[in-house]
């Protein structure tokens, strides 16, 4: 009991010291109004970041590259150190990995049972990207804009270009499934869903952007920066990550299965209809 009390006292003391430090340090002053901050969070017209000195890009692009680098590095480490030690009776990490792979593979099989090899790999990567990318904004990784202002890197998909890229790429994947399954007919089937890339892109963008705007708004005012971010920042972001991952992967597998499914020949259809009548 005494040890618990001591730890509690130390913890409360540390919190108070940090609070006092934050209040005493003050801030360097706002560089932009809340309107400008919100506008820039949507459009990224002002706070652009240099991409290896080649050109100016939205901060979301840097986030996307960092997320990809992190995922590939983690995958490489797992491939080198964890997968060779896999056992028939799995440990915790193995169970998590198998569960993740099995989840997306099962989703692909469920949505498109006749053709699911590539689809499983794609929705696995897309799911990992959306989930980790959304959680990325919790880290608060800092970057410096081309104008020298520090900014916190947002979730990659809160950048409209990233959302459009993922939406259109998913649409292309669906189109490829249609071509592989039905040839020219598959193209027609896919083109019928012409609104799909727009809806997928802006669904992702809207969902991620709303989270970003709320977070920006909360952090803009110091008084809102206590306790509230725990709910707004962590829980909402987790919820977003899960929902958006599920929605996009489910939609892609469903549409992929729909367009790649080989339709019965017309003669047979007529015959079936005649039998029904």
């Amino acid at each position, binding site marked *: 009991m005494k040890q618990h009390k001591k730890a509690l006292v130390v913890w409360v003391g540390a919190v108070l010291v940090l609070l006092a430090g934050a209040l005493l340090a003050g801030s360097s002053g706002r560089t932009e109004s809340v309107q400008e901050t919100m506008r820039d969070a*949507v*459009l*990224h*017209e002002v706070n652009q970041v240099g*991409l290896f000195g080649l*050109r100016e*890009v*939205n901060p979301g*692009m840097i986030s*996307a*590259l960092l997320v*990809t680098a992190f*995922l*590939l590095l983690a*995958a*490489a480490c*797992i*491939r080198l150190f964890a*997968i060779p030690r*896999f056992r*028939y009776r799995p440990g915790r990490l193995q169970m998590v*990995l*198998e569960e993740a*792979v*099995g989840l*997306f*593979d099962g989703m692909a099989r469920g949505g498109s049972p006749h053709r699911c090899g590539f689809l*499983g*790999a*794609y929705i*696995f*990567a*897309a799911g*990992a*990207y959306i989930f980790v990318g959304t959680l990325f904004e919790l880290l608060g990784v800092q970057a410096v804009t081309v104008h020298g202002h520090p900014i916190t890197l947002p979730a*990659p998909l809160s*950048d*409209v*270009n*990233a959302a*459009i*890229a*993922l939406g*259109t*790429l998913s649409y292309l994947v669906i189109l490829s499934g249609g071509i592989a399954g039905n040839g020219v007919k598959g193209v027609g089937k896919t083109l019928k869903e012409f609104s799909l890339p727009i809806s997928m892109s802006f669904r992702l963008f809207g969902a991620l952007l709303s989270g970003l705007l709320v977070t920006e708004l909360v952090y803009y005012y110091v008084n809102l920066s206590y306790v509230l971010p725990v709910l707004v920042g962590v829980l909402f972001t987790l919820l977003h990550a899960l929902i958006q991952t599920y929605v996009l992967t489910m939609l892609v597998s469903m549409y992929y299965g729909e367009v790649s499914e080989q339709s019965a020949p017309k003669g047979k259809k007529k015959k079936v209809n005649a039998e029904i009548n």
Partner: protein
Amino acid sequence: MPLNIDLQQILLHWMNLAILTGGLYFLLFKPVKAFMVKREEHYRSLDEEAAARLAEAEKIKAECQAKLEEADEEIRQERAKAQQAIQQSTEDQLAQAKEQARQIVVHAQAEAEHSRERVLRDSQRELRKLAAQATKKLAFHADPFDQFLDLAEEGEEYEE
């Protein structure tokens, strides 16, 4: 472009996603899935092996059961045979005993008859002998009445 949509950045994102998809497929998805398939195969082979062993065990059990039934039938038949033999033997012994008893009775009857005839013959012979002696005494002694009485007493003693 409206909303700061930039085609070049979209293409960069595509490239990024393509790299990510390929990388995750080769580094994570494929090996993990391959391991899962391998494990599934392993457990399927174990399952098939167990099923084959079970089938073999069932077959052996059925064979043993058949042999047991065969043995039971054999035992039952042997028991019936043994019971029949015992029954037969008992009947034979009984018949033999009856035959022996009958022979004993016949023999005893014959012997009794023979004894009776012999006794009868002996007694007749004795009577004849007594009668001859009495006659002889009557013929040669003075008081025939007393002699007769003496002879009669002697004859009673002899019979006793």
